[in-house]
């Protein structure tokens, strides 16, 4: 029963080609398409309180080459990608490409492969008052064009987060926005208080897609009054820039977005994941340990676009779009629907360098179009008359 073996593998697997493998540098060419300079910015669509770079539209001319010449490099550097997410409190990003909560940890995990300082802003993993162990495994699975996750907000609690990462973030150029979750308004308020004044914390993003234990487990995000109450309470507790993140799992997101704006949020981020389910391979149960999971990735982009489009027409605070961003076209789509910044989430797992690259690609795109900032790209797909599309949107709700 014992089979004594022989033969060495390395010689076996090694192909004769191995010895003469040479490394061909990959050259990325950017087509030098001549695109007419777009001077017809529909100023009516760019909401007035939004500040994106300089306001001027300048003709910066030349197409981008593989290796930009000095003149091109200078022209690229002149393009201002900066954006203000909290006009009243100050949350200025050097570029509008952020990374989404839960997909980039605390900003340190990808440190060896990504130059995090070149990201517009980092939203860290959802943080709660007390430590949470999270859900039963398995917690992630791939789905067509996306993935499901049910992490269950595993995190060490706000105090540990501050102690462990605060000093790290303080030394960073990139703003870190702490994503906050809770089970009651008091939870949210207490976490916000503890984050208030911590060096290295640039802002708060409220994840309100959590069950409100005080209200029978109903999510804050699907209940307009609860969304308003939690936003207002956190607003009173801290002067930190406050972003509130919408859930797509609602019939009509507009009243909720409005309530959040009225309650004093500086910006709205949208969207969180869509509720979904996967079945185990043997079909005897749900695949995820928690049964349900949140759908993310390219599959949800149309939903995110629709929500950004709707929200942009009812609020005037900045909107940060999230959902299925994998390339510059996606970023431009979200801008066109009224977002002034985007977050990249799931796509980071396949392409960790994507957020940094998108910033560069956006810069090149502005140069190609002769824009000094991307401001003119924002809101171009919105209906010209405010309110005109509301009925249309409602009509198309299956």
């Amino acid at each position, binding site marked *: 029963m014992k089979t004594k073996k022989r*033969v060495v593998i*390395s010689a076996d697997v*090694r192909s004769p*080609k*191995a010895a003469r*493998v040479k490394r061909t540098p990959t050259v990325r060419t950017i087509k030098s398409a001549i695109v007419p300079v777009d001077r017809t910015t529909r100023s009516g669509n760019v909401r007035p309180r939004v500040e994106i770079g300089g306001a001027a539209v300048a003709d910066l001319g030349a197409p981008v080459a593989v290796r930009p010449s000095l003149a091109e490099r200078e022209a690229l550097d002149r393009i201002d990608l900066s954006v203000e997410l909290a006009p009243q409190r100050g949350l200025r990003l050097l570029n509008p490409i952020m990374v989404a909560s839960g997909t980039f940890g605390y900003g340190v*995990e990808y440190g060896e492969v990504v130059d995090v300082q070149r990201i517009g802003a980092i939203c860290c993993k959802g943080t709660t008052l007390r430590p949470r162990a999270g859900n039963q495994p398995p917690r992630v699975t791939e789905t067509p*064009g*996306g993935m499901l996750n049910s992490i269950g907000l595993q995190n060490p609690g706000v105090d540990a987060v501050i102690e462990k990462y605060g000093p790290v973030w303080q030394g960073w150029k990139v703003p870190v926005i702490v994503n906050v979750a809770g089970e009651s308004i008091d939870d949210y308020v207490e976490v916000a208080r503890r984050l208030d004044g911590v060096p290295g914390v640039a802002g708060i993003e409220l994840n309100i897609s959590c069950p409100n234990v005080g209200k029978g487990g109903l999510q804050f995000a699907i209940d307009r009054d609860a969304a308003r109450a939690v936003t207002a309470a956190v607003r009173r507790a801290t002067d930190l820039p406050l972003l509130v993140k919408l859930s797509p799992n609602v019939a009509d997101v507009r009243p909720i977005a409005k309530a959040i704006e009225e309650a004093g949020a500086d910006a709205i981020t949208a969207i969180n994941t869509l509720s979904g389910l996967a079945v185990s391979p043997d079909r005897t149960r749900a695949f995820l340990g928690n049964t349900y999971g949140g759908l993310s990735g390219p599959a949800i982009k149309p939903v995110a676009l629709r929500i950004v489009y709707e929200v942009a027409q009812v609020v005037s605070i900045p909107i940060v779009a999230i959902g299925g961003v994998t390339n510059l076209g996606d970023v431009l789509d979200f801008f066109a629907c009224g977002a002034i910044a985007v977050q990249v989430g799931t796509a980071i797992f396949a392409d960790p360098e994507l957020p940094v690259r998108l910033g560069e690609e956006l810069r090149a795109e502005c140069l190609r179009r002769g824009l000094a900032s991307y401001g003119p790209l924002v809101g171009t797909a919105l209906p010209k008359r405010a309110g005109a599309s509301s009925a249309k949107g409602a009509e198309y709700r299956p």
Partner: protein
Amino acid sequence: MTMRLVSAELVDSRQILPGQWVQSFHAPELASGSRAGQFVHVRTGDYSGLVLRRPFSINTADPATGIVTLHFRTVGRGTEWLTRAREGDRLDMLGPLGRPFEVDPRSRHLLLVAGGLGIAGIRMLADEAVRDGRQVVILFGAQSASLVYPSSLLPDEVEYVVATDDGSLGHDGFVTELMVDYEAWADQAFACGPHPMLKRLAALAAGRRERLGVATLGRKRGGGKHDPLGSTAARRKAFLQVSMEQTMGCAVGACLGCTVIGVDGPQRVCREGPVFAAEEIAWESIA
């Protein structure tokens, strides 16, 4: 070596068993910077919406030639896509990732236990152990003879013992049943395979000292000093180390998607693992 994004050129691709492939890549950074037990996260082509990379154990790594091999089974569209890659194609690999097996420098006899594809998880350890002059026995289990890993793909120096569920080759039964025959001989054991197999091995390992009558010998290894659970030092002293599997998102510790339940709470397979000392895992949580 710290992890990085590596462009790995496919130099050879072969089906070694029905549905099982070994692919060789020229990736000198990985070949010289990886240790047994570590893995790579491979990006598949944008193939109608595959959004996640696929984790694979580093099956072998040869610093001299710069070649690493991966051994996988076609289980879905990602792995099917991989089998269609051609020589000269470049794949985007993130690695090396995770923590490796930790062999106690004093261990002379290593028992490696693999269930099916689990062989890919311990294959490189056999090379390292042979290189370091240790004796290696591989216990390998599969459903039937047709799925037994070819002995020609193992180093000369190892003893290879096979079990099949249907008795068509070697021991008639589970590979775990062979463990007891070797537990006195082995200084340490290293396993990779289905979680129920690992759970059984962990249970056997827990009773080993008592069966061998060493439990009463008192302090020996470590002289009473307690290394924290999960530390490299503690793992090095463990009799059984297991390589765990879990579905993954990021593979760098950022998403918390790949956890298994440990006695100290959730453990990320991609960061704290994939190799764990058997004592670290809450086996009751595994079916």
